[in-house]
């Protein structure tokens, strides 16, 4: 699919390999592991584009490389090879994985927002909810406490957390509330790209629905592009415009979400879609 718009995010040939690799890698692999040298190819030659305002879904089983892709983009993992370009960083001309630590921090604070499956990874559990949001604003350079509090209030209201609880620590919140604080933290600096890694996994159904509804509203309200990782096809169907299917570190199929779910081409996708209860 070729669009005229400039993508918010472009990833080309991302590979994350654990182990030395050998000449036999790639032939006769046991899932993503080379039986000769034992190297694990967590992500293998992954390329994708995310366009402005779209939600790109990524599905795949556990160990298929979804989270590896997200963590690489958020600089939690250093990729073995490959390049990625963000429209907001040097006009998308420079590979983000070659950036200096300071530039990486700027990207994480100003261009991207990350929501982890486990809130412990994304939140400071023993700092207040307001401070969790302020952390992002401080990191982006603001030194105005009043503005931070105003922004925290606005965002917590947007995710339906009572403002009266903004000075409480997330560790005293329920799982769904923690996830909503994490989302508001990720939105603090109006990022162009939101990375959502299994945000509804582990939440009960009514809370799941609330969080999904929130993501939908955020997308409309802030016009943010979203990279959405999930193994739940219902979540993908509800939110994603386009979907990528990953298996053993590779992309095996991509296309419009309806197309993928209604007319899957790859054997794995067919199995996945038909596994829906």
């Amino acid at each position: 699919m070729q669009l005229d718009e400039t993508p918010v995010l472009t990833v080309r040939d991302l590979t994350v390999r654990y182990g030395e690799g050998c000449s036999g890698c790639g032939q006769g692999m046991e899932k993503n592991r080379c039986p000769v040298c034992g190297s694990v190819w967590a992500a293998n030659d992954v390329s994708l584009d995310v366009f402005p305002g779209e939600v790109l879904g990524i599905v795949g089983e556990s160990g298929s490389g979804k989270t590896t892709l997200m963590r690489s983009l958020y600089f939690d993992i250093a990729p073995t090879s490959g390049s990625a370009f963000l429209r907001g960083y040097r006009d998308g001309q420079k590979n983000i994985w070659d950036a200096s630590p300071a530039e990486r921090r700027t990207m994480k604070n100003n261009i991207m927002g990350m929501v982890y499956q486990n809130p412990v990874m994304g939140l400071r559990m023993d700092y207040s909810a307001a401070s969790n949001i302020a952390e992002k604003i401080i990191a982006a350079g603001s030194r105005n406490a009043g503005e931070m509090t105003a922004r925290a209030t606005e965002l917590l209201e947007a995710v339906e957390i009572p403002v009266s609880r903004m000075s409480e620590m997330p560790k005293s919140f329920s799982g769904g509330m923690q996830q909503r604080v994490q989302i508001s933290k990720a939105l603090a600096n109006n990022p162009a790209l939101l990375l959502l890694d299994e945000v509804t996994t582990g939440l009960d159904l009514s809370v799941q629905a609330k969080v999904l509804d929130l993501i939908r509203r955020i997308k409309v309200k802030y016009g943010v592009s979203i990279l959405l990782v999930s193994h739940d096809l219902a979540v993908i169907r509800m939110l994603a415009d386009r979907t990528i299917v990953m298996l053993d570190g590779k992309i095996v199929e991509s296309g419009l979400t309806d197309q993928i779910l209604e007319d899957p081409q790859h054997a794995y996708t067919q199995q996945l879609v038909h596994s829906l209860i």
Partner: protein
Amino acid sequence: MNKNYNFAFLDEGSKREIRRAALKAVAIPGYQVPFGSRELPIGRGWGTGGIQLTLSLIGPDDMLKVIDQGSDESVNAVNIKKFVGLCTDIETTTDTRKATIIQTRHRIPEIPLTNEQILILQVPIPEPLRVVEAREEVTKKMHAEKDYAPMWLQLYESLVKYKRVTIASEYPCMVEGRYMMNPSPIPKFDNPKLHKAECLYLFGAGREKKIYAVPPYTEVVSLAFDDIPFEKESFTGKICRLCGSADTYLDEVFDAQTGERVYQCSDTSYCQEVRSRAAR
């Protein structure tokens, strides 16, 4: 002077190393320079950083003053003076104006110091970021990248919880807009005295093996948000019971028998000076 020891206790090689570290510290204001902290006849963490600076800088013509929490007469101050006297024979004084080297713990004297004077502070924890990050490896990187957001977050959290910044001493400041510095456990009342001062401030941490400096006329700004200005302790309505000063840092003295609270200057030499001026 005890002839069994070298002048000023330390051997000349050690003194030279400490002076080199101090010179580097002066060249990079606010940066913590590592140095080989020597063994002294005092436990590390009891002012050994300050003492090593004093011993390596002191010469036969110097006049030494030692203060501990503002007092010239406390055990720590008296013993350090005795120790330096034992191995140098140099004169000591309680008069802030007469001293060329002043070693201090927890206070900066009330009267402004001059370009002819060096103030040496004893530092327990030189790393301002230690409260937010326990690993030295990480704090080194944070300084290198000027990543001070976690410290600002600490300040903001205090605003959220208590509606004001609650740090009373060791109040962090930015030196020349580059390095964040722990001014040692001086009350924040003394922080403004570091800014564009005439004298040289040297900070020594013996246990942590770090030396840092604020050279004369250096910009030292205490951390504060744009809309919430830095505030030092206020003693409004209280005066020193001995000299009547209203603009000094006051110690609270509590009488358990009568339940009475009185206040007096923490800087004893300044208090005495005011009193003797009044008596004349």
